[in-house]
């Protein structure tokens, strides 16, 4: 348990009578990057949303840095402010400029003094390569890649204990995917704890410390990236990976 910043125990979530999450167990160490892969509808997004309580789990425990967040009476707003969340469709506040998007949480949730908030926001934006000329632009005036990087800055600036990425590149043009993955890789190397739901297997191979394969609302197999991606033990995972490897021609990529 030492060094575990997030523990998920026996997590269940039902929509009606259908279980979208079934007995999910895993833990994330400090500074670890965990990648979750799996087919659509396997419960990956729901899992992330349960962790920051955007979706209320029906059973099980989630422990963030020693705090049992699933207990009743916990201040869920405070817990959410300690967890960064990066969405598939960026979800920037479209009435606010790039820098105001980052500032909102700092000034209204963390209640930092203006000066300090501004310093932190600028620092976060620069760290994801959003330069000063873009700070005063509205989300609609930015490219998808720029929007997603602002969204990452919005998460980083809050000094979260962990950042959850929900398919952060799925809504991007291929050319823009790279700039976002690049920022995420840098973040991971810098020691940020992150869980990344993605189909970017190259990223998983290169950056993940552990890969989790989910299907049917539960974890089918987990292990180091080369095990899950190249030599999966489970038949279901093998079938999935064969198709993915065909799709992305991963064989060549991984030999380099």
């Amino acid at each position, binding site marked *: 348990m030492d060094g575990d910043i997030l523990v998920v125990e026996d997590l269940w979530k039902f929509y009606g009578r259908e279980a979208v999450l079934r007995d999910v167990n895993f833990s994330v160490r400090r500074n670890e990057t965990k990648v979750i892969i799996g087919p659509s509808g396997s419960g990956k997004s729901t899992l992330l949303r349960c962790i*920051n309580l*955007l979706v209320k789990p029906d059973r099980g425990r989630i422990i963030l840095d020693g705090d049992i967040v699933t207990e009743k009476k916990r201040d869920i*707003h*405070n*817990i*959410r*402010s*300690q*967890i960064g*969340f990066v*969405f598939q*469709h960026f*979800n*920037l*506040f*479209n*009435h606010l400029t790039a820098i105001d998007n980052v500032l*909102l*949480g700092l000034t*209204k*949730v963390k209640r930092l003094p203006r000066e300090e908030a501004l310093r932190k926001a600028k620092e976060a934006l620069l760290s994801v390569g959003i330069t000063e000329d873009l700070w005063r632009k*509205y*989300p*609609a005036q930015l490219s998808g890649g720029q929007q997603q990087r602002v969204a990452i800055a*919005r998460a980083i600036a*809050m000094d979260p204990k962990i950042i959850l990425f929900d398919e952060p590149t799925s809504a991007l043009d291929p050319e823009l995917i790279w700039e976002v993955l690049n920022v995420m890789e840098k973040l991971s190397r810098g020691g940020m704890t992150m869980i990344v739901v993605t189909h970017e297997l190259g990223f998983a191979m290169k950056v993940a410390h552990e890969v989790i394969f989910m299907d049917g609302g539960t974890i089918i197999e987990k292990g180091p990236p080369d095990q899950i991606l190249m030599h999966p033990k489970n038949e279901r995972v093998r079938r999935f990976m064969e198709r993915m490897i065909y799709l992305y021609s991963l064989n060549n990529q991984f030999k380099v």
Partner: protein
Amino acid sequence: MDWETNPQFFTYINLIFSSIGTTLILSITSFGLATIVALILSFIEVFSSRPFSKLVEWYGRILRGIPLILALFIFYYGLPRIGFPLPPIYSAIMGIAIVDSAYQEQLFRGAIEAVGEKQLEAAYAIGLTRWGVFRYVVFPQAFRIALPGWINEFSIVLKDSSIAYAIGVVEMFTQAIHIAQVIADYLKPLLIISIIYLGICYPLSYISNRFHRKLMEMGMVGG
């Protein structure tokens, strides 16, 4: 009788212009009152529990279901029967305000509901409370979304205020009719006030469209 050669032409024009004030007071006051009521009602409909939101729904359904002139008559002819006589201008203000509040309530509710689910998710995800989400994300966005429609709604109220003629409020339309009757020519006074109504409504509609285009550019409304 020909206006161009009529020495009283300017007297009539002045009479019409002096009645613009009444039209503006009538429409601005009733519109403002309607906005206040509609804001409160729309918050109730969106954020409160079911019985209250149902009540608001029926308030709107009933008021949107009656002709405007009926509302004015209820205030002007109906209230004295139960001991609350209201002067014509107040009856007109009340009648227009109460009916228009039902339309504006729909506008505001629609605007609040038009704030995307994704925006709310992101707002909660950074740790804002329910109030914080409303204060910093829902309200500022709903305000912008409602603005073009709200401006158009004022144009509608401005034109509808002419119905106060029916209970004897001497606003622009009534004044034009009076003059028409005196000079036995309806066309010219009515054309003149048409231009005045249009002169106020056209710029408003222009501004409204500008705001709407801005919203589309910012990705806050469809398109």
